[in-house]
C-alpha cells in the first residue's frame, strides 16, 4: 500500500497537503512534492487536501500514473522535508483551471 504525489503537482506545488500530514513525510524540490514511502502511514489525510488531486493511494493509483511510485520513492529521501505550507508556483491557478478543478 502506498500513497504518491503525481503529475498534477507539477506547475502547481500548492503544498496544502503538508499541513495535515501526521508524520512529516513530504519532501520537495522546486517543481513539486514527493512522499517518502518509508515514513508515510497511508492515513489518507493528504488526498482530499490537494486542490488538483495530485495524490493517489494504493489500489486507486491509475495505471498511467504507476511510474510515479518509483519516482516518489527515489526522490523523496534526498530532498528537504516540507513541513509547513508554502506559496504555490505562479502558474498554479492557471494549471488548476486547465485541469478542470
Amino acid at each position, binding site marked *: 500500500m502506498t500513497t504518491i504525489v503525481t503529475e498534477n503537482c507539477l506547475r502547481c506545488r500548492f503544498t496544502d497537503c503538508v499541513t495535515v500530514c501526521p508524520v512529516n513525510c513530504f519532501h520537495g524540490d522546486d517543481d513539486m512534492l514527493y512522499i517518502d514511502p518509508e515514513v508515510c502511514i497511508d492515513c489518507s489525510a493528504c488526498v*482530499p487536501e490537494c486542490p488538483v488531486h495530485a495524490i493517489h493511494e494504493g489500489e486507486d493509483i491509475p495505471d498511467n500514473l504507476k511510474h510515479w511510485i518509483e519516482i516518489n520513492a527515489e526522490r523523496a529521501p534526498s530532498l528537504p522535508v516540507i513541513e509547513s505550507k508554502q506559496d504555490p508556483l505562479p502558474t498554479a491557478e492557471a494549471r488548476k483551471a486547465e485541469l478542470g478543478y
Partner: protein
Amino acid sequence: MNTVGTPENLLQVAVVGSGPSGFYAAEALIKSGRAVRVGMFERLASPFGLVRSGVAPDHPKLKQAILVYDKIARSPEFSFFGNINVGKDITLGELRQNYHAVLFTCGAETDRRLGIPGEDLRGSHTATEFVGWYNGHPDYRDRVFDLSHEVAVIIGQGNVAADVCRILAKTADELKHTDISEHALDTLAESKVREIHAIGRRGPAQAKFTSRELREFGELGDCDPFVDPLELTLNPESEAELADKNNVVGAKNVEIFRDFARRTPSKHRRCIFQFLRSPVRLEGTGRLERVVLEHNRLQGAAFQQSARSTGEISTLECGILFRSIGYKGVAVSEVPFDERNGVIINRTGRVLDSDGSVVPGLYCAGWIKRGPTGIIGTNRACSVETVGSLLADLDALATPDPKSGRDGIRALIEQRGLRAVNYDGWLRLDAAEVERGKAKGKPREKFTRLHEMLALLG
C-alpha cells in the same frame, strides 16, 4: 516590558491531553523559535490518545504516528505527567499559576446518543466503549458484550462503524497477531455473530467510509460483504454528487458497493450494508431483541441532502447493537463549553466566554475545539492554528516573574503523594507491553489496569 519566550523568561505552556492534537501543539510550540517549555498532562498512565486506544488493532501502520510523538516527547523542552487528572489531582488554577497558558487537547470522550426509546437496553452499546474495550483502554476493561446472538447491528457508516463491523467480522486467526487485548480476543473467539448489519440513514453515495476502509470488507477471511442491488439505485441529486470531480470518495464507495452487490456469498459470516434507514426504537424484554427502523428518502440539493422519513417501518431481530454516530466532547470544569456541539467555546483556538470575549491564557485544539471530525493528520493543521493564536498573544500572556512550570508541578505532586508517570516511566511500560506480546506473536500485550502499570513502575 517583559518578553516571554526567552531563556530568562521561558514560555511555559501546559497541554492537557496526550493524543495527536496535544503532540502537534507541543511540536509547534517547540519549533516556534521561542524558548519554551511544554508540560503535557494525561489522566491515563499511557499517552497517545486515540492513536493507542482508537485506531483498530488490524491497522498497525496508522499507529506509527506514535514514532513522531515519541520524538517530540524526548525533546528536552517537553515533560510528560501521566496519571494526573487535571481537575481532580491538580486544579486548572494551579496549572495557571505554574504556566503562562493552558492548552486543552482532551478530545471527545463520550458519544452521541440516538435519543430513542430502548437505547439503554442491555445489548445496546456504543462504538466508543467497544473500541475502547478491544483496544485495552482501562476505562472500558470490564465492559461485557454478549456475542451469543447471530445478528449484530451497527448504526452509522463512518470509519469507526467500519472498525466495529470489521472486528466483529474477523476470525480469531485474523486478529490473534494484532495488539488487540487478550480479554477481547477471548470473547471474540467465542462469538456467534454471523450477520452484521451496517445501517446508515442516507444513501450509498453519502456513506462516510473512506474507500480503503470500505474495500477491506471485500478481503475478509470468513465474511462476505453484501449490498442489495435495489439499494444502489440513486436519485438524480446523488448522481450529481458522484459526477462532481471533487467527490472522489463518493464515486469510489459506490463502485465498491456495486462490486459487493455482484458477489456470490461463500463464507460463514456476512456484513450487510443497508441504507436510508434510521432506528426509531429498540425493543426487548430485559435485553435487546429487535430494532425498529424507519425508512428514509433523501431531500435537498446535491451535497445538502438530508434523510426524511417515508413513514415506512421495518423491524430487524438482533441481539446486540452499536451506535456509531459520532464521538462527543465532555465539558472541562471551569472552561466555557458549548454543550450542544460538545466543544469548548473558542475562535481559532482561543477560549471564549459565552458572551464571546476571549478568556486570556486558555486555548484548545483537536476534537475538543473542532468537534470529532477528521483523522489523525487533521489535528496537525488545527493545533498549528491554535499555537499561532497563542504566540500572537505573547505580550498579553507575559508575567513579570517567570512561571515555574514543571518545577512547580513536581512540588505539588510530591506534596500530594501523587503517582505521576513521566515519559521514562511510559517507556518502561511500553517495553514491558512489547515483551508481553512476544510470547503470543503480538506487537504488544497492553496493560489494561492502572494498578498493573503502577506495580511495574514500583
